[in-house]
């Protein structure tokens, strides 16, 4: 069973204190006014008295490391790819040149172009911290421990336990494009379908459409060369117009 690193989040426990957002920024040195994670609000309409109480929900989130990552589909060089080993959608910063195709291709706005590195950036589950045996920064610092991280396919891990125990009633954020996100919410997650549409930039669309044409042209000229080569080898003798030296 392949590993799938993911988060199981109890949005009912979130108090929107922004600790996870602050911790992520510091841990990953995210530039000014750029963010890797967020807390979504439903515009809670004030409800006076007993009737409307307790319904407000704040929904913490970040890159959902989808099973059908539209961002990866928009990346020409495979600089971002879904890691087969642990299901993480990784950005190889050495290979990414910051062309920005993947950014609008994420329906959740989880990606941005890091203003300092000038490359695509998003939640990567704090690999440096995990290498130290620590939880990702947002999970570690959350006051109400709403965020739980781990391999949801491993029944021993807490995330796995939560995932498997609540498999049927777990909810996921919906988007116009179904990317099969791997961020699961226990119980009422508040805003449900705020995901937008995965937009592939026109240049990438053009490249995709031109690829078969290019292959066609190359194939055509290749055939032409083969034809000439064939003629040269088979009918080499009959046109010795200009015998060479």
């Amino acid at each position, binding site marked *: 069973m392949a590993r799938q690193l993911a988060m199981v989040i109890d949005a009912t426990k979130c108090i929107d204190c922004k600790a996870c957002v*602050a911790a992520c920024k510091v841990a990953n040195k995210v530039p000014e006014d750029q963010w890797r994670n967020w807390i979504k609000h439903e515009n809670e309409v004030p409800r006076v*008295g007993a009737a409307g109480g307790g319904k407000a929900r704040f929904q913490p989130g970040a890159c959902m490391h989808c099973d059908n990552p539209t961002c990866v589909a928009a990346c020409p060089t495979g600089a971002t790819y879904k890691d087969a080993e642990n299901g993480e959608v990784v950005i190889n910063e050495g290979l990414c040149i910051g062309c920005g195709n993947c950014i609008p291709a994420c329906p959740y706005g989880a990606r941005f172009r890091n203003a300092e590195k000038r490359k695509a950036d998003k939640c990567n589950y704090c690999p440096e911290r995990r290498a130290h045996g620590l939880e990702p920064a947002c999970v570690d610092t959350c006051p109400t421990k709403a965020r739980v991280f781990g391999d949801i396919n491993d029944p021993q891990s807490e995330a796995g336990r939560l995932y498997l125990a609540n498999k049927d009633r777990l909810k996921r954020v919906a988007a116009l494009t179904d990317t099969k996100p791997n961020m699961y919410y226990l119980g009422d997650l508040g805003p449900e379908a705020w995901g937008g549409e995965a937009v592939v930039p026109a240049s990438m669309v053009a490249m995709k459409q031109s690829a078969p044409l290019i292959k066609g042209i190359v194939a055509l000229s290749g055939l032409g060369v083969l034809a000439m080569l064939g003629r040269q080898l088979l009918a080499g003798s009959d046109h010795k117009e200009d015998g060479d030296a």
Partner: protein
Amino acid sequence: MPDSNQKLSRRDFFKASGLIAAGAMGGPALLGGLRTAQAAPKAPAWTSGFSACDMCFNKCGLIARVEDGVLTKLDPNPKFLKSRGMLCARGNAGISHVYDPDRLKHPLLRKGARGEGKWQRIPWDEALDMAAEKMAAVRRDYLPCGHLFSAGSDLQSQFVGRLAEVYGSFNITSHESLCLVSNSRAFLDTFGEVPFADVLHSKYIIMAGANRFEALVTPDSMDLMTAMREHGCKLVTLDPRYTKTAALSDEWYPIRPGTDMAFMLALAHVIIGEKLYDAQWIAEKTYGIEQLTEHVKQYTPGFAAEQCGIPAEDIARIARELAAAAPTSMVYPGRRSSDYEDSTQIRRSFAIVNGLLGNWDRPGGLLAARAVGLKGVPYDAPWYDENHEDRIDAETVPMMFEHEGSFMVTRDAVLADDPYKIRGWFIYKTNPMATAPNRKKTIEMMNKMDFITVVDIAMSDTAWFADLVLPSQSYLERTDPCSGLQGSSACACVVKRDPLIEPLYESRPLFDIVKGIAGRLDLGEYFDFTMQEFRTRQLAGLPGAEEILDRDGVYYNPSKVYGIYDGRVYKTLSKKVELYNQRYEQMGIDPLPVYTPPAKVPANQFRLVIGRNALVTQGSTANNGLLHQFVPENTLWLNPEPAERLGIADGDLVEVSSAVGRQSLKAEVTDKIRSDTVYMLTGFNSLSTMQHLAHGNGASIAEVLDGKYDTVTGNAALHQTFVTVTRKVA
């Protein structure tokens, strides 16, 4: 992984391999040599050290990660039960506090007029000489009490008090008299002690005048969420604003500001009227039930409904639900209670309802402070016969806390030079210019001083108007004494701080500064110890504590949680929970809280109320680079109905003016606030231009708030300012 993301940065590769030539030939040796193993992500070489956060008073335990001498991350200490192993947004932003480019770097002496902002860098020795010399002069000319000392909530603030006492001055104020003394007073005079709420085990909580899910993150915030989500606790919130706490609570009522007492007395009316209290507990443990029964007859739910704007049947129902869940239910004590001139009596009504619920010293109720076992480090201060008789704010309000004093009363006394003159002021890590109401008066007060010394980490407005500004060290650069902390049902513990990075610039810890000044005033004998020695004496009664502190970052004293008062008397005159306070009676204060309706908000004016946001610490973090990104400026919350009437749209620039001052900021038109109330955050638009982010970013509430105070404790009354709001034509 198909290709390792070992970061071979291009530049070194480019330089190192002289690729240009090799590339042309493309020899296999070159290509073969570059193969790298599928290395796991390299764990950065960081060292870790324990400390306690200082971004608010909570002192949550943290683990700092330091990479070659530079702080890179502050993580929660999972072993720190008081903070439930968390670190809030401000705690995480501590790094931007330490590395704030606007941090004070070396001692500065004022040039030009006060508040003009012209400074001259001077060496430390010259600065300490001057501070001592000026303090000696004040003592010579105006007697020792002619010098005022103020310190914020900090582990080293006790040394400011020590300096004041050995110098001979009784005049010490702190931020407590701008915040929680009314609440402390009320619960102290009811239960004999200021309680800690055992929210975790509570089943029913009324939260009035507190906003635990939003204003700040305390142990109660986490426990409240656990109690609600896992133990089925019900939360009822009374707040003129629809705060995040209100949004998450089971019931919310936009109570009319200033009418909480009517609500509480109505609860008492129902609980007593319908005999919903534990008669045996009341008989054994409380005093004054008869007087209270008589007193609350008049405060029917109907009366409270009319005053508070909350339906009478809801009030009665809540009273019954609250009593039914007793003793594991409470009216949440809260902290900041600097609201009205009768705030102490308002909070007395909170305490009295808790008394009726019999929840004192029991699970789910109010807990006494648990033994921590830290020893005090006594010293015998000298005595100066040539001195004033008492504090300058003494004998003005009946129940002032002796060593907290009242900033508001002190300020008035200083301005009036009555009963005597004060001409010197020493201030450490507190910013009355941003937190005290009526900033003009604070400026006037500063202008009366011959010499003001401020020790702080940044050029706050208070430092901006001082004469000598000394750069202090942040909490991660210095050695601090031990401190005992109460973690309600989770723990009572001890924390300490050791430096985790080299001190920046020429900053020095407050202890060294005070020790330097004391030495120059021949008071060195009272500071003839090192912080380590001080700590050893503090820990004398706790064998092995120092090692455990070094190992875990926290030391737990396994002290009793509940039943601390079994067989012990309450520290009240009747030695019981005083529903009816005898001492008040002796002093001519209402022994039972008498409700007086708040002044009506004048037509087309609004009542300006205070509130907090977990991303801003009063007047000290608005310049924090990280927190600034969350809250770049403050806004004026304004209800849509009056906004429409005044032609104000969301985001418009508006001017807020009161009897004492005016400021302009953006309006935030929202239905999350009553139509007769407006609100803005504290700590914005500093005058000091050496705080680049906090200067000119919204409005300073201190400029607009009027300066009344609580008649019992002298605590500031910050909810009694009426303002007019007008659209500012740009």
